[in-house]
């Protein structure tokens, strides 16, 4: 899923400075699962903003609403009636797709991103998420014992590990595991060194972001 993190309250406060009526919009997709922008997080942010305003004696109304998803137009449409209530700012608590879809659908509204979209990843444990994919558009993890060196090696090496791998951790930080250490260890344990000996071919990055913004059209699904 897409892993996101709420922006610091101060930054969000900056978005709504001088505004009196604010709508916080959550998303029940990825950001609910990673505890960044679901109903609960919408409640917390809205409450913090209200308390902050009360503390300063400012007049501020903060409404809350969570959509099924913010990356599909039909759910974005559901906000029509609420938007008619004329908010001074709409804070989207979805990944960056959400505020963009909101801004396109409601061009007159002032839409702000309240989350920082961080990466495509999974939960290692409750409360711990790690990056696992970089959306290069051409998955080859089966060549690496089921691990992705493009997203999980600091240098995206296809023929690692580099000389900075020490004790299973990456040279950039002891907090970062060396994925190539894991790949190499697995290959050796499984006695597959021969199979693994060929050089990984030079990567074609054109299916990645490097080829420009990407779009998929599935004719059989398009109305």
């Amino acid at each position, binding site marked *: 899923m897409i892993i996101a993190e709420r922006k610091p*309250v101060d930054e969000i406060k900056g978005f709504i400075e001088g505004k009196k009526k604010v709508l916080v919009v959550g998303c029940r997709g990825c950001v609910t699962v990673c505890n960044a922008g679901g109903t609960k997080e919408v409640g*917390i942010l809205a409450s913090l903003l209200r308390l902050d305003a009360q503390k300063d004696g400012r007049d501020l109304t903060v409404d809350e609403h969570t959509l099924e998803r913010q990356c599909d137009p039909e759910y974005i449409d559901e906000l029509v009636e609420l938007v008619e209530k004329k908010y001074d700012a709409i804070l989207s608590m979805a990944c960056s797709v959400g505020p963009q879809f909101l801004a396109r659908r409601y061009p007159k509204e002032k839409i702000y991103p309240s989350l920082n979209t961080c990466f495509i990843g999974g939960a290692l444990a409750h409360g711990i998420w790690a990056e696992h994919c970089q959306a290069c558009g051409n998955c080859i993890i089966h060549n690496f014992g089921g691990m992705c060196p493009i997203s999980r090696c600091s240098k995206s090496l296809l023929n690692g590990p580099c000389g900075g791998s020490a004790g299973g951790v990456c040279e950039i930080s002891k907090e970062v595991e060396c994925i190539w250490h894991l790949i190499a260890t697995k290959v050796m344990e499984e006695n597959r060194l021969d199979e693994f000996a060929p050089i990984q071919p030079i990567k074609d990055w054109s299916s990645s972001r490097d080829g420009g913004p990407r779009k998929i059209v599935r004719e059989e699904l398009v109305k």
Partner: protein
Amino acid sequence: MSEEFEPRIIAFCCQYCAYSAADMAGSMRLQYPCNVEIVLIPCTGRFDVILALKAFESGADGVYVAGCLEGNCHFLDGNIRAKKRVAYLRKELESIGVEPDRLAMYNLSASQGPRFAEIVKEFSDIVTGLGPSPMRKKLAA
């Protein structure tokens, strides 16, 4: 004004310890400040930051969570989870310029009636020292 100020405190108490301790404090006729309103929860693991936020929004001057001694949670680690949530919300309160000491976590056992009374007094003193919650200025006006 500060002399007359009586803080409004909400205490989220676990039924297995703090809540029973409160009972005991009552039956022991122990004196403690009467400005605390107790909310019974099945375990402090049920405590959620939104509950404390709602309490503050409704005009509480202080909120505390009282659970079992660490290692003695009926549900194993509910009190540890609560401790982390309290620590998290204290930071969030700080980020909007509110004294984090308005929110606290205490641990005690069911047999500690006197300790319960002590905690109420201790926390009440802290919050009295901090004065009325800045977050309820508007409500008071």
